[in-house]
């Protein structure tokens, strides 16, 4: 994994910045652009990169998300490795035509003649009192685009390695970064170049009582729940999907076969969220191992509320996760 053993403590923002810096340094085909990216972006993810790599390679675009994605697709078709930023995942909706019509279809429709090795990064999710729509978690829409990978890291070290892998991937990758994690954790991150394999879920914590399947900003929530449970002698296994598409069903099934109980945790609205696919897979592939219903802890049947004072009731927390755990343990 690491051909560079030095590490430094970094936030997720810094780790992503570092990954972008490494990618820009080692591959002249890499370009970085989006709204306000030149000055570092609204979260400072691209801080310093325009100064270091020049305005030709790190640049602002006009305020137009379809434009950003469509322009990137064109760059990628003609040999570049574009890395586009959408300022908030809730603002990629204007770009969904480009995503659903082209991003993942190009290799398929041209039978491999043309490909789109492009990365689209976007902060997503709630928990930090952003304005309306800034807290959306639209990953399930993205997983519906065949030919598009969807990656959501849960910590700085993994964010860097996954992002570098995404940029080097021959296919388009959506890379979503939980806003809640941007500065809340600092962790050791290897310097220099390294990649982590896409398409693999990982066991973030081993246990045998029940499996929590989750990703992104909910991993820390699930780990916290697991800690609380452990104090009561209940060892929960936490699976961090990391890559939602292609979905690593095998790792999830292996865990559920072992524990017999599964709770899927995500902060998007429950109905139609990616957790539905996870639960459906469990019902399909490992129903015989189940000793309890497959529960989902997720957003309620409403938009992420634009109402600051009560928004924290929407996003799952350890308490809600533990309630579901208690239910599957009691079953």
């Amino acid at each position, binding site marked *: 994994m690491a051909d560079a053993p030095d590490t430094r403590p970094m936030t997720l923002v810094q780790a992503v910045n570092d990954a972008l810096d490494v990618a820009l340094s080692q591959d002249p085909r890499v370009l970085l652009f989006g709204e*306000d990216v030149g000055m570092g972006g609204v979260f400072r993810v691209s801080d310093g990169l325009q100064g270091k790599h020049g305005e030709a390679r790190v640049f602002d675009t006009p305020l*137009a998300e379809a434009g950003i994605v469509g322009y990137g697709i064109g760059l990628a078709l003609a040999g570049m490795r574009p890395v586009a930023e959408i300022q908030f995942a809730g*603002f990629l909706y*204007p770009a969904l035509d480009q995503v659903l019509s082209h991003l993942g279809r190009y290799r398929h429709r041209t039978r491999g003649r043309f490909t789109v090795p492009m990365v689209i990064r976007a902060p997503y999710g709630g928990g930090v009192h952003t304005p309306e729509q800034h807290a959306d978690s639209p990953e399930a829409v993205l997983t519906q685009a065949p030919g598009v990978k969807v990656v959501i890291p849960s910590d700085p070290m993994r964010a860097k390695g996954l992002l570098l892998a995404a940029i080097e991937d021959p296919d388009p990758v959506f890379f979503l970064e939980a806003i809640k994690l941007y500065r809340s954790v600092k962790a050791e991150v290897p310097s220099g170049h390294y990649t982590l394999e896409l398409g693999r879920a990982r066991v973030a914590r081993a246990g045998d009582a029940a499996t929590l399947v989750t990703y992104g900003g909910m991993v820390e929530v699930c780990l916290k729940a697991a800690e609380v449970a452990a104090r009561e002698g209940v060892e929960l296994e936490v699976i961090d999907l990391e890559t939602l598409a292609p979905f690593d069903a095998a790792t999830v099934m292996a865990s559920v076969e072992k524990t017999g109980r599964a709770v899927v945790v995500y902060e998007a609205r429950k109905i139609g969220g990616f957790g539905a696919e996870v639960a459906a897979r469990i019902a399909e592939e490992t129903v015989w191992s189940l000793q309890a219903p497959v529960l989902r802890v997720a957003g*309620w049947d409403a938009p992420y509320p634009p*109402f600051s004072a009560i928004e924290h009731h929407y996003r799952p927390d350890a308490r809600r996760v533990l309630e579901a755990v208690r239910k599957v343990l009691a079953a």
Partner: protein
Amino acid sequence: MEPLRFIAEDGARADPFPLSPEELTRGYREVVRARVFDERALTLQRQGKLSVYPPYKGQEAAQVGAALALDPGDWLVPSYRETAAALACGLSMSQAILYWRADPAGWRYPDDLRVLPFYIPIATQLLHAVGVASAGRYQGEDWVALTFIGDGGSSEGDFHEALNFAAVFQAPMVMVVQNNGWAISVPTEKQMRNPRIADRAAGYGIPGVVVDGNDLAAVWHVTREAVARARAGEGPTLIEAVTYRVGPHTSSDDPGRYRSADAGAAWLARDPVSRLRAALEGLGVWDDAREEALRAEIAEEFAAAVREADAAPEPEPQQIVEQVFETMTPDARAAWEVLRRG
């Protein structure tokens, strides 16, 4: 096209002048009210009593001037930046405070107010404005819809689609582009090659006007003409109001990261508030006493608004799942129970 202007930076009035002294006084009142609200709202935000707040300092005339051109019954379709326009259209200060407090009570406007909520996803409001404008015709109403967008937002596809729909359907709509020089950190020159946004009107076959957005008289005048055309069935107008975003993009933004502190210095000379005051003084209808009275009155209005807002009931968790559909789904109902129990 050069921006149309009726009040020079020193307050000198062009002749002929489009507004009566009473109108100018009324406009000044609204502009000062807007300025005071904005400054105090930013302070409230710093005190943790508002959520994210987008100030509009320097753009008061562009917003108020356009809003005053509306008649009762007309519609306002704003972006997030137009609190000044909404206030001028009748949104109460307490409602505006609750709105920016992100309190559910702030998001339900009074039933008789034809003001849509502030729009976060850029440029999406423009198409709604066209639809709202057209809807009157079918109901025997001659209302006009006034909508706003920024220079940055003019790059979105919706901007184009809205102007084209408005032109094709000859919708009674007026679109004001507040060209304030910046889309967060991106200066206008990097957003478009021809920074004269009003030039785009010709392509759609509709009138395009560029106006000094810091001159209330000019904005009011051109918008009034556009509203009259719209109401007469002569279709939409694109107005570019040239102004400047003096403050940060929002309360979360630090402009020091991308523009020098004196970037706005030139603006000071063009401040819409002081310019208007100078014009009023030139007319002999304004003096320090009147100013003091006005300021006192508005200060009291704001203080009362804060009191009223603070007296709003605490938001309740179950409000999250209310009003998704007219009739609650079984899932929402179950969630409502859970949330209410806490």
